[in-house]
């Protein structure tokens, strides 16, 4: 067991736990945001740098601080470690920079994007980013790609978090989906735009933190804040059958997997449940999903005994420097 202090909160965790997971165990405001780490995907993390924290004392044996900010999702804790997240101005400043980098090539087309309202990049930029962009050059653009007939890839919005790649690696034995090229030209690709033919391929939509991979059956149908999420289940031979159906009146507009507090899928669902079952009679509807998020998605939604706190604005609106 290792004892760590994160922003003054002391917590004891297993050896080998990452700082991010230790913070999640403690909970609250001290949990660093994560754009690429996904607890369900082995090997994820270490790509986006939003989870940077400052380690002001390495361990009880060697209490020297780490020279640079570290990615908390891939740094294991040591006994006696002291970590600073929101209490360190250096971390907040660095995170602001990370957001700016993530947004450099982003088209900022939230009004059109189907992910808007449940997008992690939107939330991250709102809470940590600058109000204005300083980038003046051309943004890189890509054409829209169909991955199969149900999944749409907008490469322009991708932040190259690799979550979808790890998901595909996990659900198939063959390598069907990956990142081609390097640096600025890097793009998500399937082998010559071949459909990812797998019963679970739709899950890449759920893991994608931004609107790069979206559901074509829901494309432009509505906005996420106008549809009501309902917990539903059905007897499925392929998957757990436990989903969230997003309803508008008595119509089901889309089906997604259930997610935990950090918006990570709890159980993968199959493409049958996701794309084909859009009739209310297909589902056993349990009741409204509890929405804990603070963004516009919680507008008009049910909450069961939880108070939704307005986001703490860290550095938002600071356009002076």
């Amino acid at each position, binding site marked *: 067991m290792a004892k760590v202090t994160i922003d003054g909160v002391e917590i004891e965790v297993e050896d080998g736990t990452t700082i991010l997971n230790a913070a999640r165990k403690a909970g609250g405001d001290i949990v660093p945001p994560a754009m690429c780490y996904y607890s369900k995907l082995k090997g994820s993390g270490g790509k986006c740098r939003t989870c940077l924290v400052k380690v002001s004392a390495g361990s009880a044996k060697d209490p020297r601080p780490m020279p640079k900010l570290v990615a908390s999702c891939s740094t294991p804790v040591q006994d006696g470690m002291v970590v600073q997240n929101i209490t360190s101005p250096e971390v907040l400043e660095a995170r602001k920079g990370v957001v700016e980098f993530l947004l450099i090539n982003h088209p900022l*087309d939230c*009004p*059109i994007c189907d992910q808007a309202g449940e997008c992690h990049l939107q939330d991250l930029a709102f809470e940590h980013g600058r109000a204005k962009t300083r980038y003046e050059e051309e943004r890189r653009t890509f054409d829209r790609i169909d991955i199969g007939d149900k999944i749409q890839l907008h490469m322009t919005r991708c932040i190259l978090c690799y979550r979808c790649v790890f998901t595909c690696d996990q659900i198939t034995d063959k390598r069907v989906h990956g990142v081609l090229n390097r640096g600025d030209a890097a793009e998500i690709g399937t082998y010559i735009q071949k459909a990812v033919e797998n019963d679970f391929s739709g899950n890449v939509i759920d893991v994608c933190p931004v609107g790069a991979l979206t559901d074509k059956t829901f494309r432009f149908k509505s*906005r996420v804040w106008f549809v009501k999420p309902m917990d539903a289940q059905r007897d499925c031979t392929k998957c757990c059958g436990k989903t969230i159906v997003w309803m508008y009146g008595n119509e089901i507009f889309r089906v997604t997997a259930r997610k935990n507090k950090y918006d990570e899928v709890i159980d993968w669902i199959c493409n049958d449940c996701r794309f084909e079952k859009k009739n209310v009679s297909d589902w056993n509807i349990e009741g409204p999903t509890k929405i804990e998020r603070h963004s*516009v998605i919680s507008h008009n939604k049910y909450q069961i005994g939880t108070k939704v706190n307005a986001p703490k604005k860290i550095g938002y609106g600071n356009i002076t420097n």
Partner: protein
Amino acid sequence: MYSLSKKSKVVVKKEMTWSEKLYLPAIFQGLMITIRHFFKKKATLQYPEQKKEFAAVYRGKHILKRDEQGRENCTACGLCAVSCPAEAITIVAAERQKGEEHLYREEKYAASYEINMLRCIFCGLCEEACPKDAVYLTEELAPASFDRTDFIFGKDKLVQPLGTSAHPKTYKPYKK
């Protein structure tokens, strides 16, 4: 009773004097007030021949703007609808097809955009929410009608006619 405003006055019934009982001075006083008003500036306007100047911030009927190339600005993002306190706006989005690039500015557009003018309170929050400079409240009055269905304004009544000026507040159709 305890007075909340502390402005109430106790009324005393007094015996009237002889001159008050005549009533003539009081009638004359009243007439003077009436006559004085003949020579004052009139408060009424001869509408519709004469029209009142609107305040610069007057908010009337909505308009859905086009850009300089005549394409519709609205991208059916739904932010106006979500910000509307009266829930007056309903939007159905559609995807722009090939060959329609001269009609709609963005990939997605509003296939139907309806404002219920009976619900609208002309607060202007939709104008403030719009990220695409699409919806504005003009100086035009929302017309009256006898039929409720006439108050559901669709795109036919809201979209800026082609070839009209681009600035929202200078768009005054009734002054053309």
